[in-house]
């Protein structure tokens, strides 16, 4: 059975809770908490995408657009109209859901590379709109002056506070998604991935489920976008370009398509690699980044989530060798 055990989730939650404390003890990694905020924000997107791509088997290279929709809705409504940030977050998610349903309905009938191209096209179109509608979005220069988040007078104005806010949401979304995966819905999604004709012959409304999960992942991306905007107090279109969508794809593939854990590990690894660990290669950073990516795809086709399986494999092999 595909049961995600409670223990790993508890360990994971504990790790998240103590991480800022550990980081503070070691000066070299003190700023890691800040990076972890972004890891959390990206995790919100990749968890949803993992459900869409890993479980339902529908590729999307356009989720940067939903990330951007959340960010811009929050940014515009709070900075220009002074609306309540949490309300804007919900409005952003609603808009993302509507857009996802409108775009998903015709797109998700496409398959494979055609679906990939359709989502790429959608992502680029939204990116162009962010660039061109200068009156609303500030154009390529971006928009600043987006206020931070606060709740009942409690301001999320330090890295640590925002960290706990974001990761609290990540944990909630994670558990929600795991529950979905373990329910009939998750089974239906995996069935669609394995064989669409068989799934529909078993009574699964393939089209409805595809749209449902597409909308869900879009809503999560929008939520992440709102968090991003309120954290950085600034957004510009280049954050939401095609390359970010590709990066999301890489995060999931690197972590392992078929596991939500994979999405989290992959997101963490890529975020730390590209923002921190590869800095020491300077000019060669991009080459090393590409090499690691190639290395992992060549040697670990199942991604990092496949590592425990590989490790188990050694032990089994060793045991059988000893016999």
């Amino acid at each position, binding site marked *: 059975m595909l049961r995600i055990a409670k223990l790993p989730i508890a360990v994971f939650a504990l790790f998240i809770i103590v991480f800022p404390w550990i980081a503070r003890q070691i000066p*070299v990694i003190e700023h890691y908490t800040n990076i972890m905020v972004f890891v959390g924000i990206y995790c919100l997107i990749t968890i949803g995408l993992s459900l869409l791509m890993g479980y339902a088997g529908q590729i999307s290279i356009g989720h940067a657009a939903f990330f951007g929709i959340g960010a811009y809705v929050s940014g515009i409504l709070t900075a220009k109209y002074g609306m309540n940030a949490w309300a804007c977050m919900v409005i952003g998610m609603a808009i993302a859901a509507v857009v996802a349903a409108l775009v998903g309905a015709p797109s998700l009938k496409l398959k494979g590379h055609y679906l990939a191209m359709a989502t790429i096209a959608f992502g680029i179109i939204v990116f162009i709109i962010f660039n061109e509608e200068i009156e609303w979005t500030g154009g390529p220069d971006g928009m600043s002056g987006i206020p931070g988040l606060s709740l009942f007078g409690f301001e999320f104005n330090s890295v640590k506070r925002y960290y706990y806010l974001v990761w609290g949401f990540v944990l909630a979304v994670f558990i929600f998604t795991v529950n979905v995966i373990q329910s009939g819905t998750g089974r239906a999604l995996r069935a669609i991935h394995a064989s669409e004709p068989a799934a529909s012959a078993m009574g699964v409304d393939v089209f409805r489920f595809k749209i449902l999960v597409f909308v869900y992942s879009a809503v999560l991306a929008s939520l992440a976008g709102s968090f991003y905007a309120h954290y950085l107090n600034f957004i510009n279109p280049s954050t939401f370009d095609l390359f970010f969508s590709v990066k999301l794809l890489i995060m999931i593939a690197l972590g392992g398509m078929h596991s939500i854990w994979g999405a989290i590990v992959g997101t963490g690894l890529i975020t730390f690699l590209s923002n921190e660990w590869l800095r020491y290669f300077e000019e060669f950073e991009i080459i090393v980044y590409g090499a690691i990516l190639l290395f992992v795809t060549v040697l670990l086709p199942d991604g990092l989530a496949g590592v425990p399986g590989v490790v188990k494999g050694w032990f089994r092999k060793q045991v059988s060798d000893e016999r």
Partner: protein
Amino acid sequence: MTLKRISVIITICFFAIGLLVGQANALEGSYKVGAVFSVTGRASFLGDPEKKTVEMLAEKINATGGIKGKKLELVIYDDEGDATKCNLAVEKLITRDKVCAVIGPSLSGPSLAVISVAEKYETPLVSCAASYKIVYDEKTGKPYKWVFKTPQSDSMAVEAIYTHLKNRGINKIAIMSVTSGFGASGRSELIRLAPEFNMNIVADEKYGPKDTDMTAQLTKIKGVAPAAIVNWSIGPTQVTVTRNWRDLGMAGITLYQSHGFGSRKNIELASGAAEGVFCPLGACNIAELLPANHLQKSVTMDYMKNYMAKHNEPLSSFGGHSWDALMLVVDALKSVGCDKAAIRNYIENQKGFVGQHGLFSFSPDDHNGLTKDAFKMVIVKGDDWALVD
């Protein structure tokens, strides 16, 4: 199986190495200055010369005794033109590397994204990006307390061009811009200042930063027959525009380029097509043309010679911005040492500082310190610039 095993071990090692490498190795008795440039990525044409310039400067300063006997230690990060990365880098410079001040970032977007960081940690930041928004808080109508910038605002370049147009009696113009921050910012200033100079913009065309051909946009402009075209872009597109403009036989419509055109490399790449193109440039691009008694003559000549000797490539205007930013900070360090508040106050009260792009005079209401005199109009003649008066 063994290959897989190795790969797993290496992956785990990456996490481990990540934790261990890059110990903060603060040199005793040195001044740390942080820098964030777009060394790679979409704005590498900015970050690359900027980084080369400050490295060259630091080398020279340290070779000639440092700052009051202390070494200048530069910590340079690459933001790849990305706001997120830039935010992380600046936060890291301040909290982990504990720098006295930060120079950069190269682009306006990332600069706007780190204002809040500089303000939060009360650390002086001297941006190398042009947008006036960097030093203008819309809420208060005053500059942000801790943020400065060295490049001329786009409005100054626009004013220089419009003044020149006006003097030539031209008021029917077309504008073209690249859809990046640089182009969009220039475009909005061109539109904003047009009424003030009685300019009538009859066409407003755009193109992407990776576009291969702008014939369509220029053909459209040809159709409305303006007296001049003002093009606002950086990178290869401005060369393509120049060539297409020449090919389409539009030499009768004068082409004005932005200050982004400020590298002789562009004249060379245009292979003859740039003849007669006007553009406003800062002093450092035209060092040889300056009269001997010009205040900036020696600093600009110096910089140009050293840079070209070391890197064997023509100077661009962008390296000059990081020159100005670093030397402003160094000047402050010389006087007040590594005291963030004192550095800020020192720069804010700096008057008549001789930089690459002009004479900087800051004030509590002006954190840029330049006026439109910082730009000189030049025209392309042969394979070089010539001053226009």
